[in-house]
């Protein structure tokens, strides 16, 4: 009996080990593939020319493979969307966790979560059909498909993440801290800004990084509403071509294992390094957050 049970356990453990190894191996192979298909572009252009070249004309003759405008576009769209999403997400979280009545919170929270469930293509569609004409008419810009529109749509995608994680962090601040502050004659606002928010700041920071990292790699929205011009933007209403949009739009037409193909994969490497960077930061903050959370209890 005991021997049989032990052998079943052993089989199970081996099985799970194999599954885990397989998924890690697949991920690793994708990474190897990405580098194998991307690195050959550097036989054509130097790393510096590739990263800082301002011309992206992959199909002209001779082609230009400078992804600087694409990198700037990605960074700019991300930055503008962060500027929109962080205050909105964090303030909504503060409202829901601290100020809203129970009834209001119960209605609002599912709506925020619903926003997270919207497929990105739907958000992109909304940006194209509603927001773009609106921007064009109201602001009189050349095209409504531009950096600002993309940033706005990406902000919609980041806000649910930022809001729900921040809300958890704020909510989990022990009530005793609020009482301690109020008992000293602090107002509700002072308590909120000087005690509750600082006590949950690492959770809020985690939410922000996670929310933004979702926006960095997002493809469909920027493909649909960023406008697609591979130029360094001079205003937030210029059309731009972020890295994921460029890859998605051009991959189908790039000749297999041609220079253009390699250049797109190399762009993928750069994008990968960006999102990796964000995830590492999120991880570091999240770990620290856990420690603080325990210590404060």
């Amino acid at each position, binding site marked *: 009996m005991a021997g049989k049970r032990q052998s079943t356990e052993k089989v199970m453990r081996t099985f799970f080990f194999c599954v885990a190894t397989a998924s890690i191996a697949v991920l690793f192979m994708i990474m190897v593939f990405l580098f194998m298909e991307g690195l050959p572009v550097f036989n054509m252009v130097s790393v510096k020319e590739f990263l800082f070249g301002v011309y992206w004309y992959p199909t002209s003759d001779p082609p230009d493979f400078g992804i600087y405008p694409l990198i700037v576009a990605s960074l700019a769209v991300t930055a503008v969307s962060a500027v929109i999403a962080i205050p909105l997400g964090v303030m909504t979280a503060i409202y829901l966790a601290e100020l809203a009545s*129970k009834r209001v919170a119960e209605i609002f929270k599912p709506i925020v979560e619903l926003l997270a469930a919207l497929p990105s293509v739907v958000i992109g569609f909304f940006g194209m059909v509603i927001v773009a004409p609106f921007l064009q008419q109201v602001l009189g810009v050349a095209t409504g498909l531009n950096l600002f529109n993309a940033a706005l749509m990406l902000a919609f995608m980041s806000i649910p993440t930022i809001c729900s994680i921040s809300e958890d962090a704020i909510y989990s601040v*022990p*009530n*005793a*801290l*609020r*009482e*301690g*502050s*109020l*008992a*000293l*004659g*602090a*107002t509700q606002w*002072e308590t909120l800004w*000087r*005690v509750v928010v*600082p*006590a949950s700041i690492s959770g809020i920071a985690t939410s922000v990084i996670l929310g933004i990292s979702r926006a960095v790699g997002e493809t469909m929205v920027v493909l649909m509403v960023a406008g697609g011009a591979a130029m360094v933007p001079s205003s937030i209403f210029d059309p731009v071509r972020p890295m994921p949009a460029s890859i998605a739009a051009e991959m189908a037409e790039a000749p297999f294992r041609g220079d253009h193909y390699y250049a797109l994969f190399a762009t993928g490497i750069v994008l990968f390094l960006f999102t990796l960077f964000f995830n590492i930061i999120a991880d570091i903050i999240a770990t620290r957050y856990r420690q*603080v959370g325990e*210590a*404060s209890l």
Partner: protein
Amino acid sequence: MSDSKSNGVKMTSKHLDFYYGNFQALHDVSLEFKKQQVTALIGPSGCGKSTYLRCLNRMNDLIPIARVEGKIMLEDEDIYDPSLDVVMLRRRVGMVFQKPNPFPKSVYENVAYGLRVNGIRDKGLIEQRVTESIQRAALWDEVKDRLQESALGLSGGQQQRLCIARALAVEPEVVLMDEPASALDPIATQKIEDLIHELKKEYTIIIVTHSMQQAARVSDITAFFYIGKLIEVGDTDTLFTRPRLKQTEDYITGRFG
């Protein structure tokens, strides 16, 4: 008006009933607290001492299901009057909680916080008051070299004294203390009791304690609570030597609770 001032009454509760939802935690509690006196609230666990104490600075307002009936006066003001400024009330009636609740800030900032929210900007004055309060709470020697470190790194007893220092820094008129010595060793307890004696000269002090000896040592008046009712109140010496009621006698001699 002059009446309450002349006989030195600082706070009174009149026919106070308190409810957590449907559960009535306090029944018809009437008590007077005089200036320059220490009142001890004693009674078995769960009898409503903390609940009563928290009524005195309206801390129970934060509990949505809580409801108060009756009156509490601070000098001539009804503290449950809708027009009363709760923030001002809490500045005048300070509190040390049953469980230490330091802010996740430095030791120094924990004490400076109350001063800052009370509008004191003068750095010199803040520093002076912080130092003074920590010294009075018998914590100075232990933390003087780590004022900038997180208060969460202090031991439970140190945190408790830090919370006392924090409450003293804003110089309230009434100090409510919920078992301020529950996590302290005999030496620190002694120091806190000395502090209470000293504070008595200026403040009105109300202290919850589970230690009969402590109540006997520090208080002038003792009030005995039992299952939400004020059973007996009187001169500490009299109450401990010749209690009027059997219930009180049983409790202070350790026959229950």
